[in-house]
């Protein structure tokens, strides 16, 4: 697994980052890149203690920007596969292998919480369905979990996908790039660990409204 890089964009995840990194290492992945998006807590310090590569943004630019930084870093390190995973502990590192199994046949593998949404709060289900419908409306591509941060990209996808959105709407933008660049993709069911903490960190209605506005804006201001 030396050519698999795990990219974790992180912002103020000091509460859980150590636990997340330890679990990923326990699952057998050593090439970990944490991109700290100018956290105001001790996220970067704690991440460095876990002996992973930590890249720090000088100012906060958003999850999209941090993900792109991580992917660029992985490219420099000759990554064959890049796995993006959320830093809030909602994803199970054991399931990385499920996505990687499909990565040999597809350019992008999306971990989908909506294939088996057991335990998902109703508000999140609505947000996810809404996000998927919006992505279909704006970008002409439908996936069940358009806002999933748990994805695997092969080297072709890493080199072709261009992320321009800085904030959460980059998730939808990635799907747009998949369609535009004619990349192959599939969805793999993943389970989600919902805690008070991970729910507080995830997407909210207000983010959804901002996301819609930015996606509309993208039509007029490329």
């Amino acid at each position, binding site marked *: 697994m030396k050519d698999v890089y795990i990219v974790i964009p992180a912002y103020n995840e000091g509460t859980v980052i150590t636990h997340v990194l330890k679990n990923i290492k326990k699952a057998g992945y050593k090439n970990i890149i944490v*991109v700290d998006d100018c956290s105001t807590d001790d996220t970067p310090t704690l991440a460095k203690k876990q002996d992973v*590569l*930590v*890249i*720090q*943004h*000088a*100012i906060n*630019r*958003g999850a999209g*920007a941090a993900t*792109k*930084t991580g992917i*660029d*870093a992985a490219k*420099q*390190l000759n990554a064959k596969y890049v796995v993006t995973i959320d830093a809030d502990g909602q994803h199970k590192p054991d399931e990385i292998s499920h996505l990687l199994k499909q990565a040999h046949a597809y350019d992008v593998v999306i971990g989908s919480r909506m294939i088996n949404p057991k335990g998902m709060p109703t508000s999140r289900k609505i947000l996810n369905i809404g996000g998927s419908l919006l992505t279909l409306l704006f970008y002409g591509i439908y996936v069940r979990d358009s806002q999933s941060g748990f994805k695997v990209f092969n080297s072709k996808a890493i080199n072709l996908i261009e992320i*321009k959105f*800085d904030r959460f709407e980059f998730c939808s933008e990635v799907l747009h790039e998949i369609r535009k660049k004619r990349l192959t993709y599939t969805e793999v069911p993943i389970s989600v660990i919902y805690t008070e903490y991970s729910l507080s960190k995830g997407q909210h209605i207000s983010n959804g409204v901002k996301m819609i506005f930015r996606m509309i*804006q993208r039509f007029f*201001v490329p």
Partner: protein
Amino acid sequence: MISIIQIIFLLIGVLFLTSVFIQVQRDRMTKGQAIMWGLIWLCLILSTFFVQYLTIISEWLGITRPIDIIIYSSIILLFVYTYQIQLAQVKLSRELTELVRKDAINKNKTLSKRTK
């Protein structure tokens, strides 16, 4: 006889025309921007003192009141300028993100060794 409002508009026009000239001298404005803003302030001054020409123009355009030319033109100009500001803001935001990202990678010792 010159009215008070004409004096006010004249002062505003001259003040901003002077400002445009100074900005160009200090290289804070391109020639294109200077011409555009210079013309706008000049139009303000001229329309203040040559109202009869506004009447002729409004009749030609099919607008009932001459003052409406100024209102309509101002609204259009505001929209154009807002659009340009938005384009510039998006461009700046993207450039800032690129700068932050590249700086972050270059400052990382592990990665900067690889780029050398």
